[in-house]
């Protein structure tokens, strides 16, 4: 009977607000833009455009999110993106068969990611900031070395497919179409969400971020989990390189400079904790959308790009401040719970087998 009690209601208003509050922000922004710029914002071309524009940052952000869940950080994703993009462009120019070319992008990412993970776990560098700051520079240098600092343009059609193609959808009107990159996003976000929720290794990522010592004594390979998240972050950076190469029909060695900071910003705006263990895939996607909509909306309203930077900075600070306030409210709730612990004790005295002989 006790078993049913503790399995009772799982819904709580506070939890729902924590989980979905950020989605409300996105919806409010969209409604605002729809009212402010009705003829432009809601047009299929514009919405498709927003989707294409956020594709790169959203892939970097989902990888960054996995890393930040373990209380880490991956500063190298922008450079990894550039290296993967150049490798793809050069392989394509060299006439490699397209399936191989498509594999190169993610493969380069996985390799650099593994390097980051090994540096952190094998070399025991004190913080992932150090290792990935190293690869941020080294990989950018490598990119320039192999490309001689020169961009390459004009890629073959199969390589452009993921980044530039659209699937026509007449139901959405004469210009109705959904970019292929949107499907890539959907698959990646859905996959990561399922992985984090359902697969034990996904749960272990949260455990490592929450308390690495608890994870270790539970028999979880903490080093294995850490290597995995950096590999995944590298993989997503490599995948986003494919999308960007396809969209721009080129490879350029300066791609993704500063992109790691946009990815971090999206994850933080989306409500993930910088100290690990907290955050949702839905939140990250909302963070990406908030940044994308802000840029799009301000463009539509002819606000200068400098204002965009300023606003995004303010939003990062605000988003984290809201989190601080929420945490403070949670501490108050905890104090309430503590005083309830006294009741818990008194109640427990009643169970049989404690002071009496039956069990």
């Amino acid at each position: 009977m006790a078993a049913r009690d503790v399995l009772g209601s799982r819904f709580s208003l506070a939890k729902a607000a924590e989980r979905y509050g950020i989605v409300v922000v996105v919806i409010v922004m969209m409604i605002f833009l729809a009212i402010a710029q009705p003829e432009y914002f809601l047009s299929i071309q514009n919405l498709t455009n927003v989707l294409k524009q956020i594709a790169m940052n959203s892939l970097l952000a989902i990888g960054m999110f996995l890393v930040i869940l373990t209380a880490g950080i991956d500063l190298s994703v922008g450079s990894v993106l550039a290296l993967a993009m150049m490798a793809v462009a050069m392989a394509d120019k060299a006439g490699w068969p397209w399936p191989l070319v498509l594999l190169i992008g993610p493969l380069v990412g996985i390799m650099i990611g593994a390097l980051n993970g090994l540096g952190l776990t094998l070399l025991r560098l004190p913080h992932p900031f150090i290792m990935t700051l190293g690869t941020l520079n080294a990989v950018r240098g490598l990119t320039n070395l192999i490309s001689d600092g020169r961009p390459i343009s004009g890629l073959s059609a199969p390589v452009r497919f993921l980044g530039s193609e659209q699937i026509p959808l007449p139901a959405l009107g004469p210009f109705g179409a959904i970019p292929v990159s949107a499907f890539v996003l959907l698959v990646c976000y859905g996959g990561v969400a399922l992985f984090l929720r359902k697969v034990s290794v996904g749960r272990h990522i949260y455990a490592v971020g929450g308390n690495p010592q608890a994870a270790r004594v539970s028999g979880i390979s903490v080093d294995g989990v850490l290597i995995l998240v950096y590999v995944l972050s590298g993989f997503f950076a490599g995948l986003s390189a494919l999308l960007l190469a396809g969209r721009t029909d080129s490879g350029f060695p300066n791609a993704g400079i500063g992109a790691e900071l946009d990815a971090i910003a999206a994850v933080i705006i989306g409500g993930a904790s910088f100290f690990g263990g907290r955050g949702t895939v839905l939140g990250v996607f909302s963070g990406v959308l908030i940044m994308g909509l802000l840029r799009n909306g301000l463009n539509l309203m002819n606000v200068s790009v400098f204002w965009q930077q300023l606003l995004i900075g303010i939003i990062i600070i605000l988003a984290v401040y809201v989190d601080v306030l929420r945490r403070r409210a949670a501490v108050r709730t905890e104090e309430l719970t503590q005083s309830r612990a006294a009741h818990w004790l008194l109640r427990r005295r009643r169970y049989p087998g404690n002071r009496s002989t039956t069990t």
Partner: protein
Amino acid sequence: MHEEPAADLMPPLLEARGISKYFGAITALDRVAFHLDRGEVLGVVGDNGAGKSTLMKILSGLFLPSAGEIVFQGSPVRFTSPRDAHRIGIEMVYQDLALAGNMTIFENIYLGREPGRRLLGMNIVDQGRSRQMAAEHLARLHIEVKSVDQNVEDLSGGQRQAVAIARATAFDARVVIMDEPTAALAIKEVGKVLDLIKSLKEHGVSVILISHRLDDVFYVCDRVMALFRGANFAEAALRDTSRNEVIGWIMGTKGHTAALAHDRVQ
């Protein structure tokens, strides 16, 4: 219940022989011998740095001993990770509890051993079954919580301790090692944890209790063993010793009497 042969014919449940542990030039443990019988609650006492925690970390697979062997039910075993110790039923409740506060009670109980099914080399967690199992297990231990979906960070110290103990006993534990389980608790919660230890014993689980609180030791233990500066110092069945004698052992003296007690004004 299964019939067991007479106790004196059986090897101890868990035994350690000649365990030494060096950390660089420091000798943390020096040829320590140790044994634990079935259903026994053993108190391990000693001053800070006496080697209690190091010994327990060796028994639970977190450290490898530099020398010596561990014998489980008469056969030598070797632990290279806590997972090896879990496999034969040795669990440890750590002093800092080692719970992930950001996760729910039921997830903490099954962390690293989630019930589920294999798919493409991954373990797909069956959360429904996990919650159900956790609720039943807590009910078996008479641990009351509001909901198994509560995050551990929202619990009181005593409740967290209870969750840590529930985790240690979730998989047919034979031996549960507890490192200062009452040290961080409000006085009101101490009794509950001690009762929990007694109910583990009633369920046939052997318990090793490390504690500085002699009240705890004398309330739940069958036998008490003292370490001093990394070596065996003394041990006795609880009925053959006294509080004052045990205090003496902790300080490295034998034949300690009430007259010498440090906490008495003469």
